[in-house]
């Protein structure tokens, strides 16, 4: 049955050819995923360093600390996010999202943290995406961080702001702490309305709980500094509690 045999061979080899294509496809996809995961880990590690740098902020070193943090942040984008951009063309941006999302979220956290400490404002997603534009090869489609990762990163930011606020209170910068408190409350309130509309709101709901705990921690700290100050207002006849609570004492006086 030579004819049948030939037909079969043809069918066999068609199948084999097709599977060779599928094999190549899967191999390339997996290798790309690995590279993206590695880039994401690098972004995470270096963004965390930026965040720690910002926490070194004190009353008298603001400029110096932020300058270094901002410089390091630019380096994260230049060195590591640029690697992501090369990989994430076309539909890979969404297909591989789980592979790079942790890194991008940490970067968002670091970038928004720097901005808040510098200007007291929220760094907008559009601004972040604008800074990423020059990193792209003009011939390629530019990478634009998506809203979901931005919001997830923002949710983590409030944890860092809480740490900052407690530190500022110990340092006597009550007004700064109150400013943080207001900012975090605003973010929390705005997110309340946005979260249920997120693609997969499960992670985000957990983060919202943590965020509320952070808000409450800041509020409790502001409360205790307030009642302590109020106690002495009558004594000192001042009506500006903050003027008394001038933070860390000068040990040498």
């Amino acid at each position, binding site marked *: 049955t030579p004819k049948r045999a030939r037909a079969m061979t043809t069918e066999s080899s068609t199948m084999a050819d097709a599977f060779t294509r599928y094999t190549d496809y899967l*191999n390339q996809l997996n290798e790309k995923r690995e590279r993206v995961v590695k880039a994401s880990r690098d972004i995470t590690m270096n963004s965390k360093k930026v965040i720690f740098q910002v926490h070194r902020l004190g009353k008298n070193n603001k400029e110096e600390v932020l300058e270094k943090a901002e410089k390091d942040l630019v380096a994260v984008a230049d060195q590591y996010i640029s690697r992501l951009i090369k990989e994430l063309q076309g539909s*890979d941006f*969404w*297909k591989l*999202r789980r592979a790079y999302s942790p890194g991008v979220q940490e970067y968002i956290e670091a970038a928004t943290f720097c901005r808040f400490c510098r200007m007291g404002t929220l760094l907008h997603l559009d601004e972040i995406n604008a800074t990423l534009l020059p990193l792209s090869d003009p011939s390629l489609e530019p990478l634009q961080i998506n809203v979901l990762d931005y919001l997830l990163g923002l949710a983590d930011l409030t944890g860092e702001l809480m740490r900052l606020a407690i530190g500022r209170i110990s340092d006597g910068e009550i007004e700064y702490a109150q400013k943080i408190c207001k900012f975090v409350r605003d973010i929390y309130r705005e997110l309340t309305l*946005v979260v249920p509309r997120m693609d997969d709101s499960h992670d985000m709901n957990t983060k919202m709980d943590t965020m509320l705990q952070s808000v409450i921690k800041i509020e409790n700290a502001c409360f205790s500094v307030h009642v302590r100050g109020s106690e002495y207002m009558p004594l000192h006849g001042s009506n500006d509690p903050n003027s008394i609570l001038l933070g860390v004492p000068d040990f040498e006086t």
Partner: protein
Amino acid sequence: SHAPSLEKQFEGFRVQLEESGSLRERIRAVVMEIESTARLMQAGLLLVHQSRSTPEVLERPKAQIAVLKGLYNQLAQILSECPSQYYRYHGDWRGETQTVASLLAFMHWLETGNLLLHTEAEEKLGLNSSEFGLDVEDYLVGLCFMSNELPRYVVNQVTAGDYDCPRKVLKFLTELHAAFRMLNLRNDFLRKKFDGMKYDLKRVEEVHYDVKIRGLTARD
């Protein structure tokens, strides 16, 4: 103060997310129809286990392919509004599409005795890889699902007196299994499904053996 811009900014996000939410709703509506069409096809194909003639069994399910094509076209239409976000919403039609792929492949095999290739599957559904294609992994999972049907098919065919069926299925499944072995899989869903295929192969081999040893096959 930054408050107004913050509110405005989140308002923007809300709008954006609501748009993607309503897109999702539209996708879901189509997917539910795909699901229900696939269910109809599946119900029709079940008759293959009850010794009806293949052409007779295939008639109705084949008629549904055009329906599916129309639905996938709708899906592609919707997705064309947000190019390159295919994989953002992929989870919403993934499971149903794997079922569809398995049904198409099973029908194709029943009709031709050949494997439905990825490109052929896309063609049947009117899909186009460069815009809205059939994800390769979904297609492969579909093939595994189809493989799971074959032992049952073989058993029932033999019961109904078709003693040549095991040989054909065994040949086909052996080749398919060999082809799958070329893939380097991760520890994921596809790997797990592929792991099951070897039991299908073993079961078909057993039936083939049963038939052969009793001299029930014509010439083997």
